[in-house]
């Protein structure tokens, strides 16, 4: 079992996680435990399975018809792949923010309220929208134009709107798939700062192609790599980010993060 820390509480873990796309095995035997209220970055070269691993954590791969998952993903003591588990409920507890900001073509308000509304939220919607936008560090910029289209915002604001939408349904875990890759450096830094606030309430697991972002923004880093022969991805090394970026245990990790290859 790959442990990043012996002290913290683990909110979700994978046990022998394999993912297949048809006959092709994309991911092999991933054992990893994600500490609660922390930011974990998944890094690795293209095709190493890091996004596949991320999507496996909230059954997003189920939406791909040829995808098949083996092993277990244990969340709150239950395997989320067990027959009696509702994947929609899994995705409410374990939210996701995607690479490209994807607000709905609706008002800013409705973008945030949408998830809560379809979940039958009965509370004060205005308060929830404000709380979520504040949580995503966007409230100050949009509070006077909540009825304007979400698409009228800048790219960085749109991504924070998507984060507000994700946290409006009160998840435990927020998965992020390269959340800053479509953003400029200033907007990227704002998201990275926001992550530090978000981890107080949520557990963040983030795929990034930007190793410096992983080094800057995460508490733990999981390095994925790919088997040259089979092209199957696997977990190479997992540990505290500060340790991994200054003194990695694995020589392949060292070569990868120092840019020797990959």
């Amino acid at each position: 079992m790959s442990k990043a820390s012996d002290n913290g509480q683990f909110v979700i873990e994978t046990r022998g996680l394999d993912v297949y796309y048809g006959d092709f095995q994309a991911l092999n035997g991933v054992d990893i435990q994600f500490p609660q209220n922390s930011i974990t970055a998944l890094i690795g070269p293209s095709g190493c399975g890091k996004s596949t691993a991320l999507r496996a954590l909230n059954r997003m791969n189920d939406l791909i018809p040829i995808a098949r998952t083996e092993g277990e993903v244990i969340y709150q003591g239950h395997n989320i792949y067990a027959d009696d588990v509702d994947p929609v409920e899994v995705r409410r507890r374990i939210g996701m923010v995607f690479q490209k900001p994807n607000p709905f073509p609706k008002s800013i308000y409705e973008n945030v309220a949408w998830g809560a509304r379809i979940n039958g939220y009965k509370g004060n919607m205005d308060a929830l929208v404000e709380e979520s936008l504040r949580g995503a560090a966007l409230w100050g910029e949009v509070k006077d134009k909540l009825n304007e289209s979400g698409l009228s915002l800048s790219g960085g604001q749109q991504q924070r709107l998507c984060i507000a939408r994700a946290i409006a349904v009160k998840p435990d875990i927020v998965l992020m798939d390269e959340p800053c890759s479509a953003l400029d450096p200033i907007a990227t830094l704002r998201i990275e700062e926001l992550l530090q606030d978000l981890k107080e309430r949520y557990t963040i697991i983030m795929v990034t192609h930007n190793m410096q972002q992983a080094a800057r923004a995460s508490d733990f880093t999981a390095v994925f790599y790919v088997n040259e022969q089979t092209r199957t991805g696997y977990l190479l090394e997992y540990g505290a980010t500060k340790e991994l970026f200054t003194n990695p245990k694995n020589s392949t990790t060292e070569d990868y993060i120092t840019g020797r290859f990959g």
Partner: protein
Amino acid sequence: MARQVFTQEMQRLQDEVLALGSTVEYALGDAVRILKQRDFEESRRLMANDWQINVRYHDIEQGCMELIATQQPTAGDLRVIAAMIRIATELERIGDYAKGIAKINLLIGDEKLLKPLVDIPQMATKTQGMLHRSLLAFSRKDLALARTIPDQDDEIDDLYNQVYRELFTYMLAHPETIEQGNYLLWAAHNIERAADRVTNICERVIYMITGQIVELDQSSDELRVPISPSEVEPVDRGS
């Protein structure tokens, strides 16, 4: 090759550290040789040349900072850069010790030396050897070598204590020699400190290779001998 510009600049800086180390190694030996020969002209030349050591030290530091800022080095690369900054700093300080010895030669002036210098040149030779090997350990990433070099610091300390006792005896018996005795003590002290700096270099080499910060010199950084005959215990200034 991956990251060719980065790799080339790393190599250039490592070569610069070695070149600076070589210059400093010679400066230390030269300073003591010049003191022994009582050559004032050479002392002035050595003191004047210290700026070159400083310029090279600054060049290494600047180059390392630029690599950090522009290339975002990590892991082993980052540790090499951190080690280079620290090692260059230690080398610059050893250069200052050599300059200090050259200055002592001028301060003693035309006065005849109390005694022929034997132990002080021996201290310098041993320290030069330690420095040379520490730079070999750096360039070859030789962990075993880096770990053994600091043991030789004890020999330097023994010689220093011997010089101290001898000069102290002179000064007690012949108070008129106190001024020169003090100057020579400072020369010996400078070499003893230079050897401590070499130990620091070895610690950085070990960190560079292993990522582990170690303390090889467990003794006090400062004076290791009684400062007056009435004091039995060495003074520990807690540094």
